[in-house]
C-alpha cells in the first residue's frame, strides 16, 4: 500500500469510527480507543520513516492539498495521545455514547487540520472542530456550560468569517487557496487570515476567550481543549512561518508577546484551572516563538497540560487558598509534581529537552523575554509543587475513585518520560545548570514574594462584549504589522 492511500484512509478513519459508534453504542469506548490507536500508528509511521515530506494534491490546483511531514507528525501524535488519555479517563464514568462519538469526530477534524495546507480545507476542519468542541463543552447542558460553549462558538465563528474574506482575497491574487499564496498576497488578506487563526489559536489579546472556556469546561473537556484543540489554530501559523520567511518574524513576535501575556496572568492567578488556562496561552507563545521546533514543543505541552487538567480536576478544591489549608493525597501530589517539573523544564523529563531546543532556536531579540517567560512558568508551577500533601484521609473520601484516571495519567506521564529521549543532545552542563537555575530562582521568587501577594487581575477584557471589540483592534494592529 502506498503512503498516499494510507494517508487518505487515516483521514477518513476517525470520522468513520465516530459514526459507527452511533450504530453500535455498546462498543463506544473500545471503538473510540481504536480510532486513536489508528492515528498513533500513522503518526509513528510518519515520524519513523525518513521519506521527507509527503505532499498530496487531490484534484487540480484549486483542490485539496495536504502536507505530511514530521512537524505534522508531532501534532498528530499529540492528538492521538491526548484523545486516548481522555477516553481512558472517561472509561468508567457515565459519559454517554454521544460524548465518545463527538470526541472522535473532534479527533478526526483535528487530524485534518494538521494535514491540510490550503486555506479552504483548513476552514472546514476548523469549523468542524468548533462545532464538536461546542457540543463537548455543552455536554452537561447546564446554563453555565451552555453559555461558555455559546461564547466559544460565537467568537470563533466571527473570526472565521474574517478568515473567509482573507481566503477569497488570496484566491483572487493567485487562483489557488494554497498556504504559499500568502506570499505576494495583499496586506489585508494576510491580516484577515491571521486574525482568524489568532483567535482560533488563542494567541495574545485575541485569545482572551481561552481562559474562561478552558477553565469552566468539565475536566476531560478542558484537557482536550488545552491539550490539543487550541493547537489547531497554532499549527497553520507555524506551517506558514516555515513556508514563508516573510511571515516568520511576525509569528515569532506574536509568540513572544503571547508568552509574556500568558505567564504574567498565570503568576497572579489564584484559581488552579484558570492558572493552567493562562499558562496554556503562554505555552502557545513558546510554540510560535521558534516555529522550527514547534512540533516537539506542542507534543510535550499537550501531554503535560492535559495531565495537569485531569489531576487538578480531581483535587478537592479549585482555589489555591483552600488547597493550602488541607494536605492533598500523596499520590495525586506526586503526579502533579512530575507534570509541573516537566513543564518547568527539569532534566530527565521531556519538558527539559524541548525547552532547551526552543531556547536554542530563538533569535537574539527574543532570548531575554523568553527567559523571563520560562522563569514565570517556574513561579506559577511552584504553586502546585509546594502544596501540602500527606496520606489520604480514608474517612474524608467522599466520591469513589475513578480507576481510569490513573490509566490516563500513566499514559501521559509515561509518554513524557519516554519523550525525554527525543532530544538527548540537550544534556550539556550549561543547559542543565541553566534550567535547574531557572527553576530554583522561580521557586525562591514564589516562596518569598508571590506566595504572599494577593493581586487580583481585572477580568474586564474577558467579557464577551470586549472579546469582539478586541478582535477589531487586533485586525488593525495585524494590518500594520504585515504592512511594515
Amino acid at each position, binding site marked *: 500500500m502506498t503512503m498516499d492511500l494510507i494517508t487518505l484512509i487515516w483521514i477518513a478513519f476517525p470520522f468513520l469510527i465516530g459514526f459507527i459508534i452511533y450504530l453500535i453504542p455498546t462498543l463506544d469506548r473500545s471503538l473510540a480507543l481504536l480510532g486513536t490507536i489508528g492515528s498513533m500508528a500513522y503518526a509513528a509511521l510518519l515520524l519513523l520513516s525518513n521519506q521527507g515530506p509527503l505532499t498530496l494534491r487531490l484534484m487540480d490546483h484549486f483542490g485539496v492539498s495536504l502536507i505530511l511531514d514530521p512537524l505534522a507528525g508531532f501534532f498528530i501524535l499529540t492528538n492521538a495521545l491526548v484523545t486516548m488519555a481522555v477516553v481512558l479517563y472517561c472509561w468508567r464514568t457515565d459519559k454517554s455514547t454521544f460524548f465518545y462519538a463527538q470526541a472522535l469526530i473532534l479527533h478526526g477534524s483535528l487530524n485534518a487540520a494538521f494535514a491540510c495546507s490550503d486555506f479552504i480545507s483548513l476552514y472546514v476542519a476548523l469549523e468542524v472542530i468548533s*462545532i464538536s468542541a461546542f457540543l463537548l463543552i*455543552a455536554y452537561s447542558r447546564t446554563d453555565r456550560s451552555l*453559555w461558555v460553549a455559546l461564547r466559544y462558538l460565537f467568537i470563533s465563528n466571527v473570526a472565521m*468569517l474574517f478568515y473567509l474574506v482573507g481566503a*477569497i482575497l488570496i484566491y483572487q491574487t493567485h487562483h489557488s487557496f494554497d498556504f504559499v499564496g500568502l506570499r505576494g498576497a495583499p496586506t489585508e488578506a494576510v491580516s484577515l487570515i491571521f486574525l482568524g487563526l489568532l483567535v482560533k489559536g488563542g494567541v495574545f489579546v485575541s485569545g482572551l476567550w481561552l481562559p474562561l472556556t478552558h477553565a469552566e469546561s468539565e475536566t476531560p473537556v478542558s484537557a482536550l481543549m488545552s491539550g490539543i484543540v487550541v493547537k489547531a489554530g497554532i499549527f497553520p501559523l507555524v506551517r506558514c512561518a516555515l513556508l514563508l520567511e516573510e511571515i516568520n518574524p511576525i509569528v515569532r513576535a506574536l509568540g513572544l508577546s503571547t508568552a509574556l501575556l500568558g505567564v504574567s496572568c498565570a503568576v497572579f492567578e489564584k484559581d488552579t484551572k484558570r492558572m493552567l488556562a493562562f499558562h496554556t496561552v503562554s505555552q502557545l507563545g513558546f510554540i510560535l516563538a521558534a516555529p522550527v521546533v514547534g512540533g516537539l514543543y506542542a507534543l510535550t505541552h499537550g501531554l503535560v497540560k492535559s495531565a495537569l487538567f485531569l489531576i487538578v480536576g480531581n483535587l478537592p478544591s479549585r482555589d489555591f487558598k483552600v488547597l493550602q489549608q488541607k494536605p492533598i493525597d500523596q499520590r495525586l501530589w506526586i503526579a502533579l509534581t512530575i507534570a509541573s517539573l516537566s513543564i518547568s523544564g527539569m532534566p530527565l523529563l521531556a519538558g527539559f529537552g524541548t525547552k532547551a531546543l526552543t531556547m536554542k532556536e530563538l533569535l537574539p531579540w527574543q532570548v531575554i523575554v523568553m527567559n523571563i517567560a520560562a522563569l514565570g512558568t517556574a513561579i506559577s508551577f511552584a504553586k502546585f509543587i509546594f502544596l501540602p500533601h500527606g496520606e489520604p484521609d480514608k474517612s474524608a473520601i467522599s466520591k469513589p475513585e475513578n480507576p481510569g484516571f490513573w490509566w490516563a495519567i500513566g499514559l501521559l506521564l509515561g509518554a513524557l518520560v519516554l519523550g525525554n529521549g527525543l532530544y538527548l543532545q540537550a544534556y550539556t552542563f550549561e543547559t542543565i545548570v541553566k534550567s535547574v537555575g531557572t527553576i530554583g530562582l522561580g521557586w525562591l521568587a514564589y516562596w518569598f514574594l508571590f506566595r504572599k501577594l494577593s493581586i487580583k487581575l481585572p477580568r474586564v477584557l474577558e467579557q464577551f*462584549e470586549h472579546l*469582539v471589540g478586541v478582535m477589531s483592534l487586533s485586525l488593525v494592529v495585524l494590518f500594520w504589522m504585515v504592512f511594515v
Partner: protein
Amino acid sequence: MLGNWVEALVLATILCGFFGIIFKKNLVMKIVSMDVMSTGVIAYYVVVASRIGFFTPILVDSQKGAYADPVPQAVILTAIVIGFSIQALMLVGVMKLARNNPTLETREIEKSNVL
C-alpha cells in the same frame, strides 16, 4: 464600474453585520447580525467569482460567453452549509438559555453564569 459598487455594498454589509455583533445587546440580535455578516461574506465570494464573466459555469457544447469562475462558488457552498448549521446550533442553545434568562442580554447572562 458597476462591479466596484457591488463590491462596496457587499463590504458594507459585512461591516454592518460586524457592528451589529458589537452593539446589539440581545443575544438573538447578535446571532442575527452574525448571519448578516456571513451573508455579506458569501456575497463577496459570488462577486469575486463574477469578475471574469457573468454566465453560469455549466458545461455545454456551445460556448455562450465569458463564464463566472466556478471555484469560489463551489467553495462557498461548503461555508453556507457550515454557517447555517452553526446558526441552528446556536439558536437551540439560546432557546435553552432563554428559560432562565428571559431577557437574553449577554451582559446579564454573563453576570449570572460566569463572572
